[in-house]
């Protein structure tokens, strides 16, 4: 499959402006023909995309589609096999203290002996620098970030004592405390209730409006369609990048998710994502594999 199989109504008009990456002046993130993977197993092949400052971009796709890999590439945590990335005008990893990364909840050791306040203060470390300790301004910023996510009362609690939604709030507060130009969020709204999801999305919307760039992976297609500005469809390669309401396009979803998605007719369209089942029934080419512990 290639870009040519995307329905013409979508690809020609909606995708062309945003997928053109060559002369993307002023873009926060430019990804050009990037391939990457782990050991010798490819996770992403020939991905090109461009993200403008102030964008709120949802990265969607099945498990194993390379969503986390894309974030790690942009963050400079892993290196591409080929292709080029430009992040905030420089190479990935060269912009100290300007990027905030939120790991997946499963990647965090919740028994670790740190308090909420200590975790959020980690967001300041890149700015504070080696061998120095947080000052009054840093504590002030941490307090403000916790206020913003509604977790100031929990500042002395150990992180393991928090609920799933509270944990996501705290980690978003850490990202906010970093005062970044670019947010890279790995499933910020996975496993949280509707209120928390709305709160977190309101905050991210505010950050985008202030000119900061937000890139978030998500499995929640309704959230992606309703709350994000743009969406990038990944399935080992870039299926499409375009306005967020493309998420409701059935054929595009079918191509991204390999047929395990139903879009039900109705007001605004209802998306049912059948991602966790049918491993055995699916043809080999469509079988999705889960993100391994990375």
């Amino acid at each position, binding site marked *: 499959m290639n870009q040519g199989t995307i329905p013409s109504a979508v690809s020609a008009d909606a995708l062309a402006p945003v997928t053109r990456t060559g002369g993307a002046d002023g873009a926060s993130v430019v990804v050009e023909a990037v391939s990457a993977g782990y050991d010798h197993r490819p996770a992403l092949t020939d991905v090109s995309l461009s993200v403008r400052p102030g964008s709120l971009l949802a990265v969607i796709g099945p498990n194993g589609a390379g969503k986390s890999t894309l974030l790690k590439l942009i963050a400079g945590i892993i290196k591409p096999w080929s292709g080029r990335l430009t992040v905030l005008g420089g190479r990935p990893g060269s912009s100290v203290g300007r990027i905030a990364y939120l790991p997946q909840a499963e990647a965090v050791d919740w028994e670790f002996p740190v308090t909420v306040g200590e975790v959020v203060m980690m967001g300041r470390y890149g700015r504070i620098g080696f*061998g120095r300790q947080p000052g009054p301004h840093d504590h002030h910023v941490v307090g403000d970030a916790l206020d913003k996510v509604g977790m100031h009362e929990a500042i002395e609690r150990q992180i393991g004592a928090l*609920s799933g939604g509270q944990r996501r709030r705290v980690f978003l507060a850490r990202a906010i405390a970093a005062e970044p130009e670019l947010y890279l969020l790995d499933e910020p709204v996975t496993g949280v209730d509707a209120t928390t999801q709305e709160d977190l999305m309101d905050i991210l919307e505010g950050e985008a409006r202030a000119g900061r760039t937000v890139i978030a992976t998500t499995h929640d297609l309704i959230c992606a369609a309703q709350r994000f500005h743009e969406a990038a469809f990944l399935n080992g390669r870039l299926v499409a990048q375009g306005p967020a309401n493309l998420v409701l396009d059935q054929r595009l979803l079918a191509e991204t998710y390999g047929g395990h998605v139903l879009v039900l007719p109705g007001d605004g369209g209802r998306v049912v994502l059948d991602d966790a089942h049918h491993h055995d029934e699916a043809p080999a080419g469509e079988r999705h594999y889960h993100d391994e512990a990375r």
Partner: protein
Amino acid sequence: MDPAGFITDPMVYPFMQRGLAASVLVGVVCAVMGTFVVLKGLAFIGDAVSHATFPGLVIAYLVGAPLYFGGAIAAVGTALAIGFVSRRGRLRFDTSVGVLFAGTFAFGVLLFSTIRNYVQDLLGYLLGNVLGISLGDLVQLSILSVIVLAIVLLIRKELLYATFDPLGAAASGLPVAGLEYLLLALLGVTIVVSIQAVGIIMVVAMLVTPAATAQLLVVRFGKMMALAVVIAALSAVVGLYLSFYLNLASGASIVLIETLMFGVAFLLSPRSGLLGRRSRERASRAAQPPAA
């Protein structure tokens, strides 16, 4: 016997003064490094590195170099090699470490068996003999300990971030790979300064037990490290006096006091212990369902 005499009598012997200073120092350095070992799950690596010092010690003995020097090269070299393998290797990590660990130790034993005379010095490194430490060794130990502690103190917040969330730390611009190698090198140095006190086989207990005990009792990183230091220092003093009065092996006494304290903490811990479980149940009955 009067209590004051019980404390002061052993201290008239210079070997006890040196032994006490050495074991407290080793306990403190091990507790500080052990906090990272416990939180990063490096216990097996610590054990591997300490066993890998043996061939280094034997080779140093055979060529007439200072034993410390041989042990340090072997320990730091192995620690860094393990770090490298963990980033590149395709085998399961603990498998690679296990292979390296057994192989290097066997090499040390092989070399040791070629030495004709009974070598008390080298056997002392296997089981530890802190009461036999010389003034020169104590000075070396002190200098290396201070260096390790100073480095950890200086970059403790970066080490904390890289240990807790390596991905987030890397994204914020911290040199996470470099910090990991530094931590492993410091671990190697710590192990070398510790083996004379407690021996190759028991170093891992000095690293893991006080920190594990502290983790059962407190929920803050700084407090965990501080409590581990207190536990280790206390165990060193109590263990050494025990070994003096009951004529027991000094390293084993220190380790067993630490183990005893771990056992008590495990039973009493607010988080995992038996008493804690009861109060937790009471708390959860009283609490309302958590929000979000």
